[in-house]
């Protein structure tokens, strides 16, 4: 599981990650807790998955100005 902490644009983050395809890695939205969003991913390399998610969000026009955290959640 990975955790994306962002107080804003949460709907867009969920939509982006659940519809994107980065190679074989996919993200499935699990739950929201405060400002944190949790996603299941089909890879064991959670560090890499968190990096891919962060890069994808930063690559969006609405995401480039966001201050958020993308980290593995064990």
């Amino acid at each position, binding site marked *: 599981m990975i955790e994306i902490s962002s*107080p*804003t644009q949460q709907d867009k983050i969920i939509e982006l990650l659940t519809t994107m395809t980065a190679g074989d890695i996919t993200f499935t939205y699990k739950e929201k807790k405060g400002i944190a969003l949790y996603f299941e991913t089909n890879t064991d390399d959670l560090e890499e998955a968190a990096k891919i998610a962060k890069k994808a969000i930063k690559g969006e*026009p*609405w995401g480039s100005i966001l201050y958020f955290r993308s980290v593995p959640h064990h």
Partner: protein
Amino acid sequence: MNFLTLWLEKYFLPIAGKIGGQKHLVALRDAFIGTIPATMAGSVAVMINALIRDLPPQFFDGYDGNSIPIIREIIGINGFVWSGTLAIAGIIFVFSWGYNLAKAYGVNELSGGIVSTAATIAGVTFAFSGTISGLSLDDAAVASINEAGWAATATDITAGGWGWIPLGNLNANLFFTAMIIGFVATVIFAKLMLANITIKLPDSVPPAVSTAFASIIPATIALYVVSIFYFVFAKIVPGMTFLEWTQETIALPLLGLSQGFGAVILVTLFVQLFWFFGIHGPNVLAPILEGVFGVAQIENVNLFQQGGTELVIAEGYNWVRGSFDAYSWFGGSGGTIVLIIAIIMFSKRKDYRTVANLSVGPGIFNINEPIMFGLPIVLNPLLFFPFLLAPVVSVSIGYFATIAGLVAPVSQQVAWVTPPFLLSFLATGADWRAPIVTLVAMLASFAIWAPFVIAANKVEPEAAEQD
């Protein structure tokens, strides 16, 4: 808070998003970032000189680094590094600006950098002149001086030469002119490239050649448009280059405005507000932070290299980009290293203490994501007030201490991950009083943070989460 977030997402974020995602502003931000390898190398050179040349005389009478073997050589080598970096920071920036603008338009970046550089340099003076008056020269001396190519009378000598670009045209003074001319020239170039007004070569021609040829017409038109502008400008404003005019009418007033307490506080407040609501403040405000305060910083670094702290105090700027890092953003924006200490000292909440303990290490290097998102501070109504107020107070302490001459202005570019006291010490050219000012600012921040940490003891973690 939820209502506020929704309101922000609807009205505020789109504006911030437009500013933060505006391609020209993104290119400007990236242009400044792109110069970092050079400006940081130059700053390291100036800083080493500060430590081995300027700091020791404060403690040892008669110390002169320039007369000590090895030290003297190191100072000389650092001089070369400075000459190739900060002394010509404007040139480095103007190329980076054109490169990033071209990239934003999706056209050849290298050509964009070249066009931007060529167009901007086309407008600077290539000559120098100077007059000495009040002399008493005999006829023979006047004749020999005139024969040598200078102009002399019995009382004056006017020396001049062509083929010299004054360093003052290539350093931080060039930035604002570069922003205007580099922008115009590169945008013309990019638009013509996109309109396909190019020379087309057969497919058999190597890509490097065909790319360069494709840029010829757009680059030539862009340079001619700018050159015609320079020509007309010279007719309208005789005796002044566009660079000099820009300095006088745009750059200096803007830099002057940035030195006011109101401007410094406003920037501080906005950065904090952006951070609190989950927006990267320095990214959105980069055109001001880097474009104005950053330029003032390069000016200070260059003044330091030329005349040490005394010259910075006499002719430099009191508040520059690095001043925020030195006196306010210790531990990261919000002065959060102080919050970590306050939590370790006063918090009875297990969740707070766990996050604080994990955040100490990164916090020492001014990385505060763990505490910003761990507590969290972001969107936490309980911590909104101190997060906003503490930096305002600490900035005020640093600002007025600098204005009052209690500490030297920031004159060195130091990497933001440098631990707090060392950062302000190095940033001020090794002024031992700077860490003391940082400590005072930290204590004031501590006094602001501590009551809120104590108050948080009475809030159940679950209740805080639901807020």
